């Protein structure tokens, strides 16, 4: 039986004033395994700790119980003391005689009887304690940033400025993301590219950032501090090293296809850069549209290229990177308003989404910044905005508010009023939500400029001659409205990217019911995920505007930097453990683990029938946070939680019930 020493703390009169310490000592001395009991006035004081160290030496104690205050107060103190006394810190157990007893009970007999139980609980538990070692995991000082939009750019730059090497993976040919598609930004109306492009260039030229555009993450393995990421570099068909970005090839390409960047409102060649300020400024050949790739002849771009950079033979390459942390900034997509048949999206070219309007109003857009109806190429006389298309509508869209639409509609209305002062602008809304610095003022400015805000749902939009007819209701005055317009702009919701769930699976992080990635705690850990070492930034986590995305990116970067600033990481030793002999390999434990810390592995076992392989669960101590849900899910009792083992908890129950 292990030799247990028990140290009863008076805490001045805090404990000793209510608990009869001598009676307690007499009872404790009779407990099985207890070989030494002593009382101290203040056990946490230096002399108090020293007397424990002395008793450990003199009485050859193997386990220590400190009966004092709450372990939340002084467990660290006494664990550190254990280390200096040459005992494993986890061979200590505290009994909470102050917060849970002397401070809440008055009757000396009752409090003393309870104190006896509480100390017995600690004695019974500590007798079954095993020394636990915190593991050390080396940390790879490199970060992966997933996504090259404003959030990803900001995170990469912040990390790089900490001096941390960064790998930035972007799936499209250029950095920039959604922000590059925008014309102006609210509430300041500064030009989106003007503030974005310098950051893009900074990323491309930063010595600590390795930029991988036109690339996708194939798989992620490992755990915090030690991820292995496989990246697919899609074949660009243009040699990045040789290309000078002169643009000769672009104008010569005979193919014309709708431009993704312009959301189909403009065209591009088969060899193209998505937009003039693209970074890197290296074209890519879209093999589906390229005449050479589809028909085997053309090669015009190859002839046109003065640098000899065109390489039709290029193939996808897989590159592997080891990183210590991952920032996920994969952004959002816009809701497809086709679900709202009554708004005639697609049925009429003059019904467009908010993002499409951005391209229409942008000076780099298909119209060169002139606002013309896509159907007729005329300047609109009247424009109608419809808000909450796909937002706040559980039936056809999503239940949440997309948060940005109120402001960008105000912005777009202002831009319209500035460019076409005589154009009438109507905004149909459910509510106007303008919380944010200078936002309300910005919205009021739109109204002051003559934008008509009508509260109500639009019932129908339908073509009427070469204009559109809008049928709606003004719910404030309870009147039906019918009006004609040349252009209808739908403020469509922000939704997760279509591959969000796939990405979540690859990374082993959670996504909510909509597909936005889940943070570890909505209030206290807003940029962490449940998977240690993976952080979130931008609209991939939920609808956000630019300032919020940038702020979160900075937060994610500093969290990642804090992690990567260390050489190695101590893992918490209170983690789940598998008894492989008992494990049935059903992996029920893995299904309840919030951290993806449990996986399976094959082991070889000797049985009567000879050696066979069997599947067992295995815990990654780097990922496990020690909640113990798996231990309860395991019927065999093969999964256990170190420090809170089944046999320990049962012993505690037994001790309290004697």
């Amino acid at each position, binding site marked *: 039986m292990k030799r247990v020493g028990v140290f009863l703390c008076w805490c001045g009169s805090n404990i000793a004033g209510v608990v009869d310490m001598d009676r307690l000592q007499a009872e404790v001395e*009779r407990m*099985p395994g207890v070989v030494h009991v002593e009382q101290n006035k203040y056990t946490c004081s230096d002399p108090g700790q020293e007397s424990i160290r002395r008793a450990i030496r003199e009485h050859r104690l193997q386990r220590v119980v400190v009966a004092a205050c709450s372990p939340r107060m002084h467990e660290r103190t006494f664990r550190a003391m254990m280390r200096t006394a040459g005992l494993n810190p986890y061979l200590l157990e505290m009994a909470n005689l102050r917060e849970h007893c002397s401070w809440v009970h008055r009757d000396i007999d009752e409090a003393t009887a309870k104190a006896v139980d509480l100390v017995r609980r600690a004695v*019974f538990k500590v007798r079954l304690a095993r020394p636990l070692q915190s593991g050390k995991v080396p940390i790879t000082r490199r970060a992966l940033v997933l996504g090259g939009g404003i959030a990803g750019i900001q995170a990469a730059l912040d990390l790089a400025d900490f001096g941390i090497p960064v790998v930035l993976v972007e799936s499209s040919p250029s950095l920039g993301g959604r922000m590059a598609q925008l014309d102006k930004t609210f509430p300041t109306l500064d030009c989106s590219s003007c503030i974005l492009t310098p950051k893009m260039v900074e990323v491309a030229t930063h010595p600590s950032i390795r930029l991988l555009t036109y690339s996708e993450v194939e798989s992620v393995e490992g755990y915090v501090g030690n991820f292995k990421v496989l990246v697919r570099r899609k074949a660009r068909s243009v040699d990045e090293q040789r290309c000078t970005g002169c643009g000769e090839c672009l104008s010569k390409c005979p193919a014309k296809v709708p431009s993704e960047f312009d959301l189909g409102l403009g065209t591009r060649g088969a060899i193209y850069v998505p937009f003039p300020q693209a970074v890197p400024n290296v074209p890519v050949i879209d093999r589906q549209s390229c005449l050479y790739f589809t028909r085997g002849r053309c090669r015009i771009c190859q002839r046109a290229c003065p640098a000899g950079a065109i390489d039709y033979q290029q193939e996808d390459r897989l590159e592997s990177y080891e990183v210590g942390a991952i920032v996920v900034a994969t952004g959002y997509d816009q809701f497809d308003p086709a679900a709202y048949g009554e708004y005639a999206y697609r049925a009429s070219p003059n019904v467009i989404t908010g993002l499409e309007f951005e391209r229409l109003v942008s000076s780099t857009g298909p119209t060169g910044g002139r606002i013309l109806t896509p159907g007729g190429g005329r300047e609109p006389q009247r424009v109608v905005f419809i808000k909450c298309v796909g937002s706040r509508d559980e039936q056809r869209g999503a239940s949440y508010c997309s948060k940005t639409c109120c402001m960008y509609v105000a912005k777009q209305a202002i831009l319209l009023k500035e460019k076409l002062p005589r154009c009438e602008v109507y905004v149909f809304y459910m509510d106007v939500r303008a919380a944010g610095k200078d936002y309300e003022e910005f919205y009021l400015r739109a109204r002051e400029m003559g934008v008509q805000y009508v509260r109500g749902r639009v019932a129908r939009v339908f073509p009427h001659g070469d204009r559109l007819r809008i049928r709606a209701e003004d719910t404030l005055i309870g009147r039906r409205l019918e009006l004609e317009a040349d252009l209808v702009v739908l403020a469509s919701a922000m939704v997760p990217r279509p591959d969000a769930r796939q990405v979540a699976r690859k990374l082993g992080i959670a996504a909510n019911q909509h597909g936005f990635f889940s943070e570890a705690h909505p209030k206290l850990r807003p940029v962490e995920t449940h998977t240690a070492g993976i952080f979130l930034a931008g609209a991939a986590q939920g609808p956000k505007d630019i300032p919020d995305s940038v702020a979160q990116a900075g937060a994610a970067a500093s969290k990642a930097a804090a992690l990567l600033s260390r050489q190695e990481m101590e893992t918490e030793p209170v983690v789940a453990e598998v008894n492989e002999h008992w494990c049935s390999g059903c992996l029920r434990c893995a299904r309840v683990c919030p951290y993806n810390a449990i996986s399976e592995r094959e082991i070889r076992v000797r049985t009567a029938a000879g050696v066979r392989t069997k599947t067992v669960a295995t815990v990654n101590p780097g990922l496990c946070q020690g909640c113990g849900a798996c231990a309860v899910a395991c019927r065999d009792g093969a999964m256990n939680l170190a420090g809170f083992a089944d046999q320990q908890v049962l012993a505690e129950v*037994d001790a309290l019930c*004697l």
Partner: protein
Amino acid sequence: MAVKLVRGSDMLRWLRRCGEGRRWVVPAKEDRHWLFAERDGPVVFPPDYRNATVGPKGWLLPRSEPILYYRWTGGRVSVTPAQGWRPQVIYGVRPCDLKAIALLDSIMASEPWPETQYLTRRAHTVLVGMACTAASSCCFCTSMGVHPAESYAADLMIYPLQGEEYGVAAFSEVGREWLAQLEGEEADAAFSPAVPALSLPMPTSLEDLPGWLERRFDDPGWQRLAWRCLSCGLCAYLCPTCYCYGISDVDRGGAGRRVRWWDACTLPDFSRMAGGHDPRPTTTERVRQRIMHKLAYHPARQGEILCTGCGRCIEYCPMGIHLPAALRLLGGDGR
């Protein structure tokens, strides 16, 4: 056969009077199943009583029982032996179970470690046997050399005769004392015992059976029988002669009791040793062990077969593993 003749109601009254102050353990039907349970006194049996699913074994060798109590005080342990017996009458015991008790008696009394707890309990027990007039569908006592009207360990034996009439005979000191208090004449009565439903396909005489089985220790027939064993303890716990037990401490924080409980060699962990090695790792070895112990090892050592043909394992094994099948398979029948 010389017996005292008595009417049923008189017999019950007499038994009740003699057993005054003792616990009465009688066959009782609980929801379709017969078992031996504590009741006020002896009862009349309905005609459908053949034998109980759970025999009287547990009243002599309980499913679990404390054998001592201990307490640690000041580094010393004090021990108090358990007093787990009450004077009792076990009534209505069939000859197969009586024979089994006789076997247990000799096993438990064997030197150098007689089982005092069992023996004490046994010494305070009066066994009232009941000869068989009808067999259940799985009985095979005569194949094992057990006779359905024999008294074996009984103190008193009851023979159901015609209608309400019973014959009673005594086979021990206590039995004779009790019988002396029964008014009635000793007379000769004709008793025709039941014929067991099954007769085993005996490959050899009972005397030669141990050797016959030993020669077939490595017979593939064992595997053909045991592959479907699910490793429960049903056969052993229902068996009137299985007596294996384990001992563990029930600790309540420095005080507690040492408890003896039934164990079964068919359970998977029965023969697993501390290091993890198990000499009987599969059902084949375990089923073989159980049958060999009964029909070969014990008879070879003690001259008595440890099976009394009660038929319980046949009737209740959920996978249909039983002695007749074993003998047939080892005898070379391909099935």
